[in-house]
C-alpha cells in the first residue's frame, strides 16, 4: 500500500457558481461522503490546504488578470468574463486555496511525507489561460503546480496527463513552447466538445514542438478507443520523455453516464487509465504523482470513479 495524501477543505464549498450550475459544491460533498462511507478516507493522509502565495499564481497568470478576478468577486458580480464562469464573493479566495492545496500536495510528496496525493479541489483549472477564465476555470492549478515543481524543487521534466473529457487548452497553451513540460491530453473530439481545441496537429510550438500530444476521441466511442490511444500515444511518449514528476488533470466527465460529454468511457475504462498511469509513474518518477480534480458532473457516478482512482493511487485495488 502507498501512503496517499488527500487534499480537501470545507472552504472549497464556498465557491458558488449560481443555481443549476454543474460545477457545484455538491461535487466535492459527494466525493467526501463516498470516501468516508467506503472507508477509503481513513486510509489517506489528510493534507491541509492553505492559500497559495500569489507569486506562484503570477508564475503562470498575468497580474492584471489576477486583479480583474479579485475585482469581479469584490464587486459582487455573478460571472467573470463569460456566463460559464459563475462566481461569488468567495470565489477569489477559494481559487487561491485550490492552488494552495496543489502546492501543499507537491510539498508533501517532495518532502517524502507521502508517496502521492489526490487533490479534491475546486474551482478546477485546466481551461484557464494566462489572461482569461474559461470553462469554469480561473487559475490553472496544474500548470502552476508544474512551475512550482521547477522553480521551488528544481525538477527539470514535468509530465502532465489530462484525462478530463475536455481538452485542457489553458495548460497546453501555457507550455506550448516549453520542452521541459510534456502535456498529454485525451478528450472528446474538438469538433463536438468544448473548448474546440486539442486536435492531433497541435503538437507544441517552437522549442516545445513534440512536447504536446493530443488524442481526440470521437463521440460515441468508449473504452476500446481510449485503450488504443493511451497505449499508442501516451505510453511511448512518456517513456521517452521520462518525467521526474507527473501531475494529473483528473476529470471524470468522460463516463458514459455524464451528460457533459458524448464519450462512453465505462467505470472499468477509468480503472484502465488509472492503472496505466500508475505503471508510468512507477517507471518514470519513482512513484511521485499528484492528481488534481478537474471535471466530473454526474453526482451518482463521479464519486465512485474518484474512489476507484484513489484506490489505484493508494495501491488498494
Amino acid at each position: 500500500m502507498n501512503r496517499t495524501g488527500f487534499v480537501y477543505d470545507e472552504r472549497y464549498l464556498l465557491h458558488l457558481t449560481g443555481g443549476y450550475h454543474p460545477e457545484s459544491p455538491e461535487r466535492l460533498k459527494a466525493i467526501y461522503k463516498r470516501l468516508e462511507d467506503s472507508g477509503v478516507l481513513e486510509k489517506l493522509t489528510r493534507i491541509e490546504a492553505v492559500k497559495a502565495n500569489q507569486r506562484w499564481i503570477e508564475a503562470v497568470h498575468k497580474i492584471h488578470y489576477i486583479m480583474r478576478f479579485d475585482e469581479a468577486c469584490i464587486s459582487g458580480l455573478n460571472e467573470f468574463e463569460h456566463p460559464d464562469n459563475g462566481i461569488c464573493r468567495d470565489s477569489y479566495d477559494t481559487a487561491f486555496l485550490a492552488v494552495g492545496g496543489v502546492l501543499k500536495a507537491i510539498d508533501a510528496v517532495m518532502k517524502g511525507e507521502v508517496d502521492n496525493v489526490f487533490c479534491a479541489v475546486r474551482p478546477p483549472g485546466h481551461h484557464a489561460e494566462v489572461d482569461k477564465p474559461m470553462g469554469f476555470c480561473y487559475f490553472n492549478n496544474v500548470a502552476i503546480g508544474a512551475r512550482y515543481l521547477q522553480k521551488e524543487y528544481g525538477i527539470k521534466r514535468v509530465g502532465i496527463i489530462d484525462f478530463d473529457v475536455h481538452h485542457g487548452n489553458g495548460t497546453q497553451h501555457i507550455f506550448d513552447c516549453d520542452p521541459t513540460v510534456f502535456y498529454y491530453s485525451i478528450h472528446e473530439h474538438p469538433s463536438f466538445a468544448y473548448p474546440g481545441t486539442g486536435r492531433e496537429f497541435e503538437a507544441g510550438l517552437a522549442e516545445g514542438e513534440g512536447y504536446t500530444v493530443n488524442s481526440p476521441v470521437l463521440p460515441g466511442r468508449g473504452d476500446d478507443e481510449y485503450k488504443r490511444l493511451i497505449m499508442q500515444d501516451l505510453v511511448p511518449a512518456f517513456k521517452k520523455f521520462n518525467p521526474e514528476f507527473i501531475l494529473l488533470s483528473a476529470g471524470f466527465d468522460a463516463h458514459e453516464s455524464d451528460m457533459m460529454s458524448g464519450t462512453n468511457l465505462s467505470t472499468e475504462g477509468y480503472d484502465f487509465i488509472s492503472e496505466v498511469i500508475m505503471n508510468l509513474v512507477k517507471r518514470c518518477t519513482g512513484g511521485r504523482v499528484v492528481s488534481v480534480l478537474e471535471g466530473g458532473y454526474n453526482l451518482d457516478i463521479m464519486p465512485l470513479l474518484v474512489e476507484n482512482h484513489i484506490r489505484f493511487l493508494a495501491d488498494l485495488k
Partner: protein
Amino acid sequence: MFVSERMAKNLITAGPDMTIFEAKTIMAEKGFRHLPIVDSAGKLIGIVSDRDIRAAMPSTLMKKADYEITLATIMNFPVGDIMTKNPLTIYAYYTIQDSLLMMQKKKVGALPVIDQEGYLKGLLSVRDLLRSFVSVLNIDEPGCLLCIVVNAKEKTGQMKKIVDIITEEKIAMGSVLVARAWDNNKRAIFPYLLTNNIINVKKKLIENGFELIDPMQWYLDHQQPQ
C-alpha cells in the same frame, strides 16, 4: 459579409516588365501564391500565380547544363508574358457567397478586387475564404456542438423552439448548421454553442421531445457498404 472585410489590402504588385526571376523571388519570400500585375497608373492588367511560374520553368528532366542555360534565359523574361490577362475580377461590394461560388465554378485560387475604373483595390484568395468561414462558424471560439434531429413534416417551428431553449439557458450561439435532407422528413440541426455548460440545455431539449443524436452513429449509418 462583404469582400471588403476579408480581402487582403496591403498588396505587393508588379508591373508587366518585372522579370520572372524577381516575381518568383518576391512570391517565395512573402509566401504569396498570386501576384497581381498593374500598369503604371495602378490599373489591373493581369495576375500571375505560382502555377504560371512553374509552368514556365524548364523541365527538371533536362541535362543539368542545358537546364541551367534555359533557366537563366527564362528568368529574364517579363512576367507580362506569362500572366493571365484580363483575369476574373470582383468588386469590394461583392459578398463572400458570390466569391465562394465563383471560385468553385471557375476553379480559380484568387480573385483580384477592383473598383469601377479598374484600379486594383485588393485580393481575395482561397485562404482568405477559409479564414472567413472559420470565423463565420465561430469555431475559433470555445464551444461545443449539439446534434439535434427534428421531424420537419409533422411540426413546424422546431428551430424556434430550439433557439428559445438555448436562449432561456442564456447561452450564446456561435453558428447553426442545418442538414435539410436528413432521413425521411427529418432534418438535423447543429447549433454550435459558445459554452462548456451544456447539461441543462441538453436536458431541456430532451424534455421537449427533441432527439439528440450520437454523431458517430450517424457516421456509421451513412457509410457505404465496403
